[in-house]
């Protein structure tokens, strides 16, 4: 009994002496969480998207389904004029459903970097074709003015991949690795866009920042805010959702 106690004590005291998680492993943990933040095997969410430009401001309400990293289906619920407009993305291919004409329009590859629904997100942002874990090299980094409580990871795309960014810097809370912001730099090292994560809430047992605010650096007065109203993760989804037939069905 006494021997056991000694062993237990030894185990406890030796805990701090165990090798700490190595920095590369920590960076990988951070980017992996980032990749899987709003995704998982499946997800279904009710999202509000507020788009602010110098000329107008509007809010869209939509329901979005995702499967893995590559498949997404989004249908717009509000406003009235756009009700029923839908987007299906499977891997590299993308289609829009236009409710007024009841037609399906394929988005050509040349337009993947175009704005999605007038927002500051591009068509390409709808899927995570390139994950940080697989397509980027990453390392812990310290910016010029680090904030206490935050840790930073710098990600640089691996060679030969059609990624438009020069680098991406992620900032996460040290305590729970919850993302705080993401800054995208172009190939010349200029800030191209800034995404802020706010309002951490629990949806279906998973804690995520419910608000994502994207500010493009080049476009003054532009801002897109995504708000998760409802979200469910790792739920059984019918494979029929991610089909052209479902897209064409129109509601």
């Amino acid at each position, binding site marked *: 009994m006494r021997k056991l106690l000694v062993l237990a004590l030894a185990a406890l005291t030796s805990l701090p002496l165990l090798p700490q998680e190595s920095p590369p492993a920590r960076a990988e943990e951070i980017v992996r969480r980032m990749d899987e933040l709003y995704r998982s095997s499946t997800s279904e969410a009710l999202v509000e998207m507020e788009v602010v430009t110098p000329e107008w401001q509007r809010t869209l309400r939509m329901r979005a389904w995702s499967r893995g990293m590559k498949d997404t289906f989004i249908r717009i619920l509000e406003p009235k004029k756009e009700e029923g407009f839908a987007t299906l993305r499977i891997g590299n291919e993308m289609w829009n459903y236009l409710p007024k004409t009841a037609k399906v*329009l394929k988005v050509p590859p040349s*337009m993947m970097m175009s704005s999605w629904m007038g927002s500051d997100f591009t068509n390409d942002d709808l899927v995570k074709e390139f994950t940080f874990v697989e397509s980027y090299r990453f390392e812990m980094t310290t910016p010029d003015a680090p904030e206490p409580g935050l840790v930073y990871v710098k990600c640089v795309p691996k060679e030969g991949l059609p990624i438009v960014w020069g680098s991406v810097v992620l900032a996460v809370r040290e305590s729970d690795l919850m993302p705080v912001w993401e800054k995208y730099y172009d190939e010349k090292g200029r800030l191209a866009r800034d995404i802020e994560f706010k309002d951490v809430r629990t949806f279906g047992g998973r804690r995520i920042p419910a608000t994502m605010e994207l500010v493009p650096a080049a476009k003054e007065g532009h801002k897109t805010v995504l708000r998760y109203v409802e979200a469910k993760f790792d739920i059984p989804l019918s494979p029929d959702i991610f089909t052209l037939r479902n897209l064409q069905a129109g509601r």
Partner: protein
Amino acid sequence: MIVLKMAFRNIFRQKRRSLFTGLSVVGGFALAVIFIGWSDGSYNSIIDQFTRTRLGHIQIHEKTYLDRPTLYKTFADVPKIGAVLDRTSGVEAWTPRVFSAGLAGAGDQSAGARIIGIDPQREERTTRFEGTIIQGRPFRGPAAREAILGKGLAEILQAKLGDEIVLLSQGADGSIAEDQYQLVGVTSSGDEMTDRIAYYLPLSTAQDFLVLGAKVHEIAVVVSKLGRVQAVSRAIAAGLADPALSVEPWQVFAKSFYDAMKADQAGLWVMLFVIVIIVAVGVLNTVLMSVLERRREYGLLKAVGTRPGGIVRLVVLEVLILSVISMVIGAGLGLGANAFLARHGIRFGSGFTYGGMVFDTMRSEINLRSFTIPAVTVFVSALLVGLFPAIKASRTEPARTMRMH
């Protein structure tokens, strides 16, 4: 007077020598005339085709539009601006337009498109739009639910006349713009790049689609004389007196095209310079030869009391008389050739592309400068070239040269 008489006599005494000198001047002069007339003709037809059939000679925009065109940089009051244009002399026609980018689709095909809203009647009067329609017909009216596609875009979409062409874009209020219009025509502007993306809509239809109200992005103006573009442009700007608008001639809004033209024009001057050198060397050669073989003659002239200045005058006069006669003949030849080329042009088998436009026939142009420029250059070079042997002749030592033969 005696010098003039002697000069003529000298020219006609040595007919063969004069003929050769004259021929080199005639040839050079005619070559220069044809060359300038031809390149002026080519440039003006390229400029005219480039501007008239597409851009217009002058464009009116919201003042920051050209720096970075967006859907939102519009202006209203088209009728008011139109009234000013109608009052401005030199303005032949004008037409309002709206632009945006979108995604066009037909069947399973889709492609990025440039939406161009045009006023069917005004566009026809300004840029002869209907002449570019190679298939189908023009729009029925300014609010018809019809589309005309560029040839390339129609091919990409595999669209046939009568098909509904879906269009997806964004309205000026941020809303999604989606609709479909019946394909009634296919146009070929001569510019393949334009034709690969052009999706024409009648003006009102386009304004409704893009939620623009009565606003437009551009008014294109065509002037009656290409050479007066800049003056007319200034007159329009003064007439509008609106700081929110920019009025620019094609030299400004099509700057890269203008620069390319200017660079090519610089090449023209180099060519012209080479031609002048050839003429000058030819003249120098023959005049020098004639002076050298007549040293004895000049020696004699001096021996009988002619002053060196007199001999210089004599030789220079000979050259000038010869040049003038040759230029008259050369001008006749050049004019004839240019008149022929202006009427018939030269056809290139498959045409060539310049600035994205396809040209298959190039024509010459008869203008004043195609005569004045070669005349001045030939005259001056003949004078300069004649002066050297003339001075040489005047320095002849009578006693020594006369003893030579």
